[in-house]
């Protein structure tokens, strides 16, 4: 008991002593370059303390239960939607963000944050397909359409070598796009059609996998994966490093895909909103923003960053879609409680059969 009290007091003491000049960043792991963090620490003469989450929903659940103490959070589109609707964010003081002008206007003024009252774009990824180019060529599989994942005739050739994301929202969006509907379609009938498409294709899939498909692609156990553009970029980098004879390429389906835009926001109970604003402005500088793209191959909404990004990444149409590709991308909107239940019911049925 005594030991516990001493430990507790020491911890409390150390915590309160450091609260002075700390920026608490709640972010995805490996979603900011270490050099950027160090440079910011020197710039602001403060310390950046990072904690991580691996999934938007985990972060949302924690905040919904009342967790406090975070300054900056980096939610994805529909999670940002949810946070704004829950009134969990601090409005941004634009006067402190002169670098905001660097952002490509195409990524500003999204449906859920008109006028960017609460958020500033940070990075984006596209949910598409990654494939083993050697195998797909060998088997003559067209990778320009979601049919590669949903059409049983095509799937028969690659049975057991395909994985899809284990997110209900992403998979339903892909199926809806395949059927020609919008990814944000909330028509119950269309959802049932999407469900049928998924169930028909399911026997050919190896697994619902949101995390280790990079490794599986690189090793060659999986030949086609439904995944995120930066993950697929990483898979190819790893494959080349491991000396594989094939490349892992991106395929942006012609029916369109989902754009996941991550933004920086300030939590309404942030201990240091001043440091947070400094950080956001710092990250809006082109050079700093580019470091992330170069590190993990994420898309960059910062127009000023373009000149600092490595050419092989900047010229990759799946990471930086051109105008035509961009027109087919949609951001996922958040659903209300009734709709989420309906989707989950469908998802449970898909997973149980």
């Amino acid at each position, binding site marked *: *008991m005594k*030991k*516990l009290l001493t*430990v*507790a007091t020491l*911890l*409390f003491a150390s*915590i309160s002593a*450091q609260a002075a000049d*700390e920026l*608490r960043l*709640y972010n*995805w*792991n*490996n979603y900011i370059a270490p050099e950027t963090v160090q440079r910011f620490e020197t710039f602001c003469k403060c310390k950046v*303390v*990072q*904690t*991580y*989450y*691996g*999934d938007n929903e*985990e972060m949302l*659940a*924690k905040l919904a*239960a*009342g*967790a*406090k*103490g*975070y300054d900056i959070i980096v939610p994805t589109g529909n999670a940002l939607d949810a946070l704004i609707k829950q009134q969990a964010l601090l409005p941004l003081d634009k006067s402190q963000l002169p670098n905001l002008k660097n952002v490509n206007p195409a990524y500003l003024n999204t449906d859920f944050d008109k006028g960017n009252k609460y958020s500033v774009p940070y990075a984006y990824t596209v949910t598409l397909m990654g494939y083993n180019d050697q195998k797909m060529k060998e088997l003559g599989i067209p990778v320009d359409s979601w049919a590669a994942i949903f059409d049983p005739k095509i799937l028969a050739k690659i049975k057991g070598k395909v994985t899809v994301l284990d997110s209900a929202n992403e998979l339903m969006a892909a199926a809806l796009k395949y059927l020609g509907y919008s990814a944000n379609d909330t028509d119950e009938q269309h959802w049932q059609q999407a469900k049928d498409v998924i169930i028909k294709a399911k026997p050919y899939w190896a697994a619902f996998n*949101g*995390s*280790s498909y*990079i*490794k599986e692609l*690189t*090793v060659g156990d999986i030949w086609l994966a439904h995944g995120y553009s930066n*993950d697929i970029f*990483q898979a190819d980098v*790893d494959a080349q*490093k*491991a000396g594989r004879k094939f490349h892992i390429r991106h395929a942006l389906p012609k029916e369109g895909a989902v754009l996941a835009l991550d933004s920086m926001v300030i939590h309404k109970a942030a201990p240091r909103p001043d440091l947070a604003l400094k950080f956001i402005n710092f990250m809006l500088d082109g050079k700093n923003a580019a470091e992330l793209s170069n590190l*993990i191959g994420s898309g960059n909404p910062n127009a000023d960053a373009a000149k600092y990004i490595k050419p092989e990444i900047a010229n990759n149409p799946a990471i930086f879609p051109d105008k035509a590709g961009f027109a087919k991308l949609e951001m996922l909107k958040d659903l209300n409680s009734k709709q989420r239940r309906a989707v989950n019911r469908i998802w449970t049925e898909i997973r149980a059969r």
Partner: protein
Amino acid sequence: MTNVIRRPLGLWLVALAVYAFLYVPLVIVVVYSFNDSQLNAEWVGFTLDWYRKLFHNEEMLQAAGNSLMIALVASAVSTTLGTMAGFAMHRYRLKLLPLLVLTPIAIPEILVGVSLLIFFVMLNITLGLVSIALAHIAFCIGFVAIVVRSRLSGMDESLTEAARDCGATPMQAFRLVTLPLIMPGVVAGALMAFTLSIDDFVITFFTAGANASTLPLQIYSMIKIAVTPEVNAVSTLLMGLTLLLIIIASKLAPNAIRSS
């Protein structure tokens, strides 16, 4: 003593097979910490790079240290409370305690995590390492209690009674007679509590603060970006360190940990 002889060859073979089952994945983990490849997928070549990277990774080391500290505190407290609970459940006809002891094991972690978070927020308890430790103790008590109780059941009460007849107070009887007899159960419970605490993710995620992390939190957050062999390296080190600590502890306090 003749007990020791009754270990027929068949028993040896099966036991060794089970040890192999337990260790093959571990061997892979340790070996791949020296693997010259980012993926945890196949052997490429030998390197100490991951250990080098680890020593520069302050965050990961801090998280590992936090995990160790929390696990030590949590297992110490929960073993004490759990032994008391196990003893009480064996000795007295209690109704509430057995239920309270068993339910944390049954109830899904995610529910416990969310409810503890709401509870801490309601009481305005600052989230941090202490909140994590408090949460861990809560779910470890049950494991210790069940093992201690099962060790006690069927135990020969005559020894304790004899001690009391010789004039020992209940406290002395417990300390000098009962406790040594149930020690393997207590140690087994402590080992389980330590293991549960050091590897817990779900409850820790919800009760952790904004400025401190544990090793499972670090590692699980890497799940989307592929877990690098740095994780293998830190796991190998943590295992080695813990083993070392236990061996040192058993040499320093042989009476406390010896089996009888």
